[in-house]
């Protein structure tokens, strides 16, 4: 989906600053949100791609205002509500109740976890068949991504690059996030000269990004 999360190449953000002494978690709630996020696929019967998609789907306002661990918190709630483990509005109602407000909490819902069993752990898979592209081949990234989960950033779409490495085969996030199919396929590291992506005046560098076979066509 063309969401706020797809940030590569956006302008207007200002400088990046490093705080060399920052703690792993700035506040205790961040640590808890991290832990719940790390367990969220197990709690909701999902997977890593579904978790990422639950982050991508957050409202752009929330995405920016909540910060990294706020997004983790949001994605846990989304995954749990999506699968009926928690009813919609449960977290906000409980938070209001805990701070002393007189609220009625929503009735519990019946969990309906996805009918999904991974064929193996993790995302890497061994697949049959030779890769469609070889190192050195010229390829073009597709011009659009599907409206569900995708790992094809806007800034690469429609551009022509060169396959530099054949990566391990992996499940396709686009279908895996929605529990449709693992659709394991070849993945290629594809390099793009900066001028292809950003025009003749671009800084001199090479951008390399992994592309799932579904994202590419011969060029």
């Amino acid at each position, binding site marked *: 989906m063309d969401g706020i999360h797809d*940030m*590569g190449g956006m302008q207007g953000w200002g400088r990046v600053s490093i705080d060399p002494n920052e703690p792993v978690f700035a506040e205790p709630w961040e640590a808890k949100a991290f832990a719940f996020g790390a367990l969220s696929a197990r709690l909701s019967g999902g997977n890593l791609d579904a978790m990422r998609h639950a982050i991508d789907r957050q409202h752009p306002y929330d995405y920016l205002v909540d910060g990294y661990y706020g997004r983790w918190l949001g994605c846990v709630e989304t995954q749990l509500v999506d699968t009926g483990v928690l009813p919609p509005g449960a977290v906000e*109602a409980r938070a209001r109740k805990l701070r002393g407000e007189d609220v009625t909490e929503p009735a519990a819902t019946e969990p309906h976890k996805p009918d999904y069993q991974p064929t193996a752990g993790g995302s890497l898979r061994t697949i049959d068949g030779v890769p469609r592209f070889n190192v050195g081949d010229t390829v073009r990234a597709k011009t659009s991504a599907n409206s569900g989960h995708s*790992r094809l950033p806007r*800034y690469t779409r429609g551009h022509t690059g060169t396959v530099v490495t054949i990566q391990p085969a992996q499940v396709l996030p686009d279908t895996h996030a929605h529990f449709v199919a693992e659709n394991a396929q070849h993945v290629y590291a594809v390099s793009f000269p900066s001028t292809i992506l950003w025009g003749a005046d671009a800084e001199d560098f*090479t951008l390399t990004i992994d592309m799932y076979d579904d994202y590419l066509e011969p060029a």
Partner: protein
Amino acid sequence: MTATPHAADRPGPAQRTEALESLLLERGLIDPKVIDGLINRYVNDVGPMNGARVVAKAWSDPEYKARLMEDGTKAIGEFGFAGPQGEFIRVVENSASVHNVVVCTLCSCYPWPVLGLPPTWYKDPAYRARIVREPRTVLAEMGLALSPKTEVKVWDSSSEVRYFVLPERPAGTEQMTEEELAAIVTRDAMVGVGVVHA
């Protein structure tokens, strides 16, 4: 104008986290010991000190370095460093003529087994947006001014492959032990926004 998606008095993230915890606990879905263990692991046991040991060994032991470049995941695993976000780690080497830098523009994918959880700047929209468009400018702002002759390679972590930068060993460290070398390797150098100084 687009309205904000919430009531003005929406509970903040600390309150919502407490609420979520209470809901999960009363349903028996989480074990506080597991939660504390996870947090403790990423606060105390998994962090850039892991990656620094890998780098120091690669600088000290040519055979290890060869294994690391050939199969990063396996060579890193020799230290027992493995786990989430480390399913397949590829090592890219910085030198006097080539500088690699890593980003995840779509979220904040990061090689947790060797670097721990990502720092704020790595997750900052400014870094995610700009490092794939004007890396030399961003690196200079972050304190790393590269020669125009240095080749810059930016790696966007869009699949489950995680990238780990092997920094260049600084001059004047020839007599240092592996342990001493590990102490000077920084997180920022292993992502590629810094270099290691003797």
